[in-house]
């Protein structure tokens, strides 16, 4: 006990000091009620920290960002976290260290990525979040970062339900193929759909009220994949041969379900009506074939809207806390027109 300062206590003290310093920076940061400004320049370096490139949607998102940056002659510095939250945090930190002009990225987890948004603010770099948001109790849009640009997943579910109600005349026995359990899009798309059937939209009753003739007879996860969508549909079809409609949380599962229905001798598009979400090329092909009824777009094409929002911010315009992506709707009336233009 003779030594007062052991190696460990020095480490502890320095850690505490760093923590205080960081906390201090956050507090001083939050006293400015606006994100750091961005000067008018000829060109910009944009830091884009992608979560992963493990599915066509993410690949389309990255390509959209790259194309838009190239069209404007800006430099896009892209990183890929490969589905690893810690890696994305490190990626964003290194982009901050590189001194990019602005950060645009989809935070992989809403809580884990919030502190680096604050770090960017402290470093004087404005942040625009796309497709996923951070926890507003840690970092607030309009104060700590410019805005969140993304689709309204609940509204996507509502639009699917509305179309299905009309297509089936309000009479349907529905199998719901859910996305990955616990994922935000899965939770919201289920809520939007089920609320509409129960006669609710955004917490207030619809004029028509609950739709008694539309019943969800089974609801199981297909993990957003074609293979599991097919297997789960195959199984549910045995126990529920009276099914007349399928609502899939994404296109891939709907396409799997179509295969399962055809295999069982059913006629998807005729005796079973299918609706899904995403707006992929494969879904448009299926709509043209007549097997899929409709798909609500969940656009991955963030490039144009993200850069346009950045322009507005540079110009000092007022930007809402949530810039909603205008998702299109594809059914037999317009699917052929857009065939091959999606992802």
């Amino acid at each position, binding site marked *: 006990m003779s030594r007062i300062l052991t190696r460990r206590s020095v480490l502890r003290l320095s850690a505490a000091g760093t923590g205080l310093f960081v906390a201090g920076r956050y507090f001083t940061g939050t006293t400015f009620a606006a994100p750091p400004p961005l000067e008018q320049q000829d060109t910009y370096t944009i830091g884009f920290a992608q979560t992963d490139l493990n599915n066509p949607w993410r690949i389309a998102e990255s390509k959209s960002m790259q194309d838009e940056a190239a069209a404007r002659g800006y430099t896009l510095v892209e990183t890929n976290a490969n589905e690893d939250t810690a890696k994305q945090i490190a990626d964003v930190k290194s982009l901050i260290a590189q001194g990019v002009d602005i950060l645009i990225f989809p935070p992989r987890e809403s809580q884990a990525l919030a502190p680096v948004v604050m770090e960017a603010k402290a470093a004087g770099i404005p942040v625009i979040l796309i497709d996923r948001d951070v926890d507003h109790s840690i970092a607030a849009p309009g104060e700590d970062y410019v805005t969140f640009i993304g689709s309204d997943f609940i509204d996507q579910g509502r639009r699917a339900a509305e179309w299905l109600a009309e297509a089936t005349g309000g009479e349907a026995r529905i199998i719901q193929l859910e996305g990955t359990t616990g994922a935000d899009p899965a939770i919201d798309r289920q809520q939007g759909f089920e609320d509409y059937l129960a006669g609710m939209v955004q917490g207030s009753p619809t004029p028509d009220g609950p739709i008694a003739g539309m019943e969800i007879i089974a609801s199981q996860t297909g993990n957003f994949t*074609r293979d599991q969508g097919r297997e*789960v549909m195959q*199984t549910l079809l*045995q*126990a*529920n041969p009276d099914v007349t409609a399928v609502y899939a949380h994404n296109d891939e599962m709907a396409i*799997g379900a179509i*295969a399962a229905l055809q295999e*069982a001798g059913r006629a998807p598009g005729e005796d079973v009506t299918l609706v899904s979400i995403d707006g992929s090329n*494969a879904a448009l092909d299926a709509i043209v074939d007549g097997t899929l009824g409709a798909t609500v777009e969940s656009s991955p094409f963030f490039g144009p809207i993200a850069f346009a929002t950045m322009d507005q911010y540079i110009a000092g315009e007022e930007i809402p806390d949530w810039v909603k992506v205008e998702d299109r709707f594809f059914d037999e009336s317009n699917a052929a027109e857009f065939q091959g233009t999606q992802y």
Partner: protein
Amino acid sequence: MAVPTPRPARAMEPLAASRRPGFDLRAVLQTSQTARALAALVVLLVYNVLFTTNFVSLGTFNANLTQVATIVIVAVGMTFVIATGGVDLSVGSLMAVSGVLAPLFLVSGGQFGAPWVGLVLAFTVPVAVTALFGLFNGTLVTKVGLQPIIATLVLFLAGRGIAQVIVNGELREFRNLGSPLVPGFEFIGLGGIAGVRFQILIMAVVVAVAAWALRATVFGRYVLATGGNEAASRLAGVPIQKVKLTVYTISGLLAGIAGLIVVAINRSSDPHRVGELMELDAIAAVAVGGTPLSGGRATILGTLLGALIIQLLRFTLISHNISDGVARIVIAAVIVVAVLLQRQRTS
């Protein structure tokens, strides 16, 4: 024929004849592990017949067997590997490799001389490549001396990466290939002979050949000897290295076949999703079937039963619309019970 004859003490037996070669149904059923697995399967079947709507139907039969086919095919390879005391984590990734390679040969014109050459290549090249990857696994285990779990972790990670690089990370739709060869290729996943789906027949052949090889061939004896006591087997003249190289190659080859089936069924090849978590499904089937993960003993029939039990359990839970979270807990509980039963037997 089946009159039990008194056996000489084990130590006196030559290694390669510690059990009488040849298929003997009674002997199979007498191994308590297989009997337990069979009993569990029967319980599940009876429950479903009583309580699941439309369970007794051709549709249910086909749905279950088509869904379980790829797991069984991969799990048979896994059984051989586990019998030598190893494990193969790379099978799912190798399925993805095979799945992305096949469409490369499904091209429209006469790039390979005659069109049918492309079709033959689409079936053979992917499987040959994954077999070579399996051989690579075996080489890491034998020549480099890596632990099997580490050795096969290499291709678990790199294999999927290779699959992604080959197609630039993109999902490939077969209908967009515009090739007349596609329907011929899809036969492996969607075709049938006399009303029985083709992948069920593949599964049956794989199981029959593997069960025979394990029980009735010198190779089968060598596999079990290697896993039972490697040092003693080496002294007794068992070619340990060759045996290990062979089992990993078989595992890679079977994973390749399973990959072809999956992409044919889905009419698309997704390098990120094909074979995802297959290594765990296969290991679970082997464990539930009664093959100890320590090696030295193995039962192909058990593996088939193990896969069928897990499949039927999943089918039952989904049919009754049990939520995903509860379903996972039930499946985990079944695996725990199976492993506990196994421990009782070994101790």
